[in-house]
């Protein structure tokens, strides 16, 4: 299990990286490498060249934005997000999901941008970003564009990234007032690919009814799956046990067409969607804060 030979580049700046990417068609960017390198060790992946982004400090900057949101540099490592008080305060859903990602040794190396660009259907971060309505900033040698997470994930390991483009940062809006969140997943063992996971954001109006619900599911499709029917069912309802139960049932029956593998049949995944969605929404509802505590 040794990787095939490849050319190695370690640009010191983003521009240099984009230039390299533009000139090497079959080059692959190397972020944390925690998914790419195993695939290379198995020789399931054999890129002709790697462009190592670990030398570009500018891509690792993470901080708060004036609107109370967050900006995450693509090369920010999982362990940094996991330990960041700012993330805990401004994106508690993200903070809750972090410990579910593999193990400490992987989180010390893995990066948020790498995980999103890899777009593994079983990964936590894509679903979390969709639930949080994050905006992804993509740069090419010639231009920069901003893509909502929901449109970034286009299929199985497929994203809106064009050849020559890099994901440079992720912007998270501040948690809305009267919103609650929850992340739930079931894996065979702690840190394994989840059999099913749910990232839920729930926002209530003054009347205590759901004004907005975002339920993003992982490991049930080609990418993160937004449970739109479940969300629609909740709209205008108080987050009661019965309305949540009904929403979870819809999510399982109509929002997903899950795959089967040796660990979980489609039917079992459906059941997990049913149960975990209910549990996540219940917890999210219980966490709704009267008003935003984010200083803006």
């Amino acid at each position, binding site marked *: 299990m040794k990787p*095939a030979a490849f050319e190695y580049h370690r640009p010191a700046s983003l521009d240099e990286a984009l230039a390299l990417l533009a000139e090497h068609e079959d080059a*692959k960017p190397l972020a944390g490498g925690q*998914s*790419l390198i*195993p*695939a290379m060790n*198995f*020789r*399931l*992946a*054999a*890129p002709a060249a790697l462009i190592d982004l670990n030398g570009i400090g500018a891509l690792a900057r993470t901080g708060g934005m004036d609107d109370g949101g967050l900006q995450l540099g693509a090369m920010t490592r999982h362990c940094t997000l996991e330990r960041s008080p700012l993330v805990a305060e401004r994106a508690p859903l993200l903070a809750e999901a972090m410990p579910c990602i593999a193990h400490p040794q992987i989180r010390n190396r893995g990066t948020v941008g790498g995980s999103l660009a*890899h*777009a*593994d*259907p*079983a990964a936590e971060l894509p679903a979390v970003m969709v639930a949080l309505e994050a905006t992804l900033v993509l740069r090419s040698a010639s231009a920069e564009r901003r893509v909502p997470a929901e449109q970034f994930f286009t*299929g*199985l*390991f497929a994203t809106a990234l064009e050849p020559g483009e890099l994901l440079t940062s992720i912007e998270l809006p501040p948690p809305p007032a009267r919103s609650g969140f929850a992340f739930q997943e079931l894996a065979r063992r702690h840190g394994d*690919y989840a059999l099913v996971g749910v990232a839920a954001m729930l926002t209530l109006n003054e009347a205590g009814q759901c004004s907005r619900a975002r339920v993003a599911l992982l490991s049930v*499709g*080609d990418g993160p799956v937004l449970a739109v029917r479940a969300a629609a069912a909740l709209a205008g309802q108080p987050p009661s046990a019965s309305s949540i139960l009904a929403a979870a049932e819809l999510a399982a029956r109509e929002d997903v067409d899950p*795959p*089967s*593998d*040796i*660990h979980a049949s489609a039917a079992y995944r459906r059941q997990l969607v049913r149960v975990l969605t209910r549990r996540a929404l219940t917890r999210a509802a219980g966490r709704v804060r009267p008003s935003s505590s984010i200083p803006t």
Partner: protein
Amino acid sequence: MIVEGTYPLPGTPVVIWDLLMDPEVLAKAMPGTKLLVRAAADRYEGVMRIGIGPITAAEFELVIALTDVLPPYSYAMQIDGKGRAGFTRGTAKVELVPEGAGSVMHYSADLQVGGKIAAVGQRLLDSVSKLLTRQGLEALNRELNHRLGGAPA
């Protein structure tokens, strides 16, 4: 691994049939096919490269043999793909049923997957096969529309 379904296509079976026998069209129906030649009346040979997510080094030498050919309605294929990442082989059945102005394609494939991709890619096989089938059919549909001078579906 079983893949099956139905898919509406423009044109009557008679029209579609010849196009289906055209290696260029067939190649489009099989995503990742880099090369496909008709080696004999009932035999196609080519190279297919599958690049999905972590799997980018899966190149297969492809041999497709046609059997039970009943123009313009149905045929079966013996599919045999071998590569460093493993192999896939099996049979596929294609049936064209006239429906209105067009046809409905009934397809079913029973494929074995072996070697490395089966051993370590299991988590993705189901999704990948669904994806390739969908992509293939959509490509086929586009091609037919194009060739029949119709608007792309």
